[in-house]
């Protein structure tokens, strides 16, 4: 099963007169249950690619199909709808809502999906347990360490049982121990629930966990360990 299929995708950013070709004709297929790493130097297009896979952005040209659904012509609200049930995000910065507790941050996507209170409570507690934060349930982000915040973010990304989680340099702001813990948790969840993980990184300690490594350079895929074996 394909979770995402991008065909000949380009993305050109325009700021004033300056055009940046962040992606220059990229085709990639993400299969269900993958634990895939996007690597490449800074500015190579990793974030842009993740944003396109995650329907946060639309390509300048090319096609993006998510779970078999063509997304090219979706409007802003339709894309929001598509995201909220099927795609979870983890960002490099610890992207929690600062006014909400760990519990409430994880609950937010469930609220947006119209889940009832009992379901929500059950799911939030289950997830906070999975990321080992049962003792920090009602803490606000500023009362949590970076590693704890990132674990809350992972729990939130998983809340709605998405088919795919996109993580943009999730360990970049963490020390080795916390970075390892995040990777362990993501790997464990990938094993246990079969949720697809795609993460951008240039941290070798992270790359070693991946079972597929896609290398980007100047907006092009220069190497893909998946196809390497075949060709």
């Amino acid at each position, binding site marked *: 099963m394909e979770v995402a299929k991008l065909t000949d995708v380009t993305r050109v950013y325009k700021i004033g007169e300056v055009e940046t070709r962040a992606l220059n004709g990229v085709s990639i297929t993400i299969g269900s249950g993958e634990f895939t790493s996007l690597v490449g130097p800074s500015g190579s297009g990793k*974030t842009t690619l993740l944003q396109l896979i995650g329907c*946060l*952005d639309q390509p300048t040209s090319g096609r993006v199909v998510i779970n078999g659904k063509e997304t090219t012509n979706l409007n802003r609200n339709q894309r*929001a709808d598509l995201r909220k049930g099927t795609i979870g*995000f983890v960002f490099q910065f610890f*992207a929690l*809502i600062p*006014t909400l507790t760990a519990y409430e941050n994880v609950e937010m996507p469930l609220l947006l999906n119209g889940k009832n209170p009992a379901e929500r409570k059950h799911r939030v507690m289950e997830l906070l347990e999975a990321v080992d934060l049962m003792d920090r349930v009602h803490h606000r982000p500023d009362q949590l360490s970076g590693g704890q915040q990132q674990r809350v973010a992972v729990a939130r990304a998983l809340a709605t049982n998405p088919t795919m989680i996109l993580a*943009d340099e999730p360990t970049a702001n963490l020390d080795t121990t916390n970075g390892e813990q995040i990777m362990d948790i993501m790997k464990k969840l990938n094993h246990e629930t079969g949720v697809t993980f795609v993460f951008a990184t240039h941290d070798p300690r992270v790359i070693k966990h991946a079972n597929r490594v896609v290398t980007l350079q100047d907006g092009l895929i220069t190497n893909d360990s998946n196809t390497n074996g075949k060709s």
Partner: protein
Amino acid sequence: MLNYFKIAYRNLGRHRRRSILSGLALAMGTALLMFIAAFFQGEMRSSMETTLRLNTGHIQVQDADYDPDKLSVAWEYLIENPQQAVVQIEALEQVQTATPRLMASGIVSVLDESIGVQIMGIVPDSEANDPYRDGLVSGEFLTADDREGILIGYPLAESLGLEVGDQLTLLVNTSDGDVDEQNFRVRGVFSTGTSAYDKGIVFLPLAKAQAFSGAENHASMIFILLHDREQADAVADAIQGEGYQVKTWSEMNELLVLVNDFSNAYLMIINLIVLGVTATVIINTLLMSVFERTREIGILTAIGMKGRQIIALFLAEASLLALGGIAFGSLMGWALSAYFGKVGIYFGDLGISGDMLLQDRIYPYLTFDSAVNLMITAFIITVLASIYPARMASRMEPVEALHGSN
């Protein structure tokens, strides 16, 4: 359900001082407007009441040719033998009291100082004269058979240095176009609280005024007070008569009625101006929040929040700010109005006379309607104003909102 207000409340708490300051701006605007409304209403009420009580009454019956501005006592302009009509009018159940009055023009002089005045001949016992009787500052009120007593206003007594018991000379323009002159003794000094009125009028008993001016058995008007002034048209219709003109208070006070009718429109305009200013403060606060929370909005969008939910989030914030500000402001405005409604605000003689009389002290008077109107208007304007920043937040592309994240 997503509890927008809970989140909005916490967001306001993030910059407590800023939230309080912008809430306070709205509070001060509301308080000011509430006080202005109370002041306006107090002024209108007092002006209407004062003018009707002192000047025009609710209805006047005059000779068809009478001109109130001329103060002529030539017989052709006067009502002959008003007494019988007075009795008939008083028999009407809507009528509180009716009394004949004679208006003449004259000059009061003491030593070498003289001042032009209206001379009003009154039936001393009539309850229509209560404002003067109750306003007696010193001395006694007139009696019907007093032949040399006069009642003068406090400002006039002051400027001529007159006290109770002192003598003054009064000149009158008589019915046949001559001038007559006679000495009177000050029986009493009154103050109605409206200096513009008090400084220009003196009272004589009707019989004395009639004899002195040569009006004999004539009067300028029958002055009528009703239990309810809304009945004026009905009563006026009932007492129409050949050779008379019957004028109601609204006909005699066109300007005042007009000002009264438009006062709500004036207030609305003032409201819109002041609330427009406070709305810009709120817009500013919200815009700051939108820009500060760009990334947060990006996160919310990324996890599936829709445009209208983001709008709702910011509108909830604006509503809370508005509710707090308006509640506090209303409390202040009410307190101000209540305090000054008790002690009054002293303006002195504003120099307005004739058509519109104002008390020297204005007592703000807040009506429930105008308070509620203001609160609702303030709320609606504030929330409407915040639609702009809210929409701006909702239109942010998640990618741009998240930009700078790596």
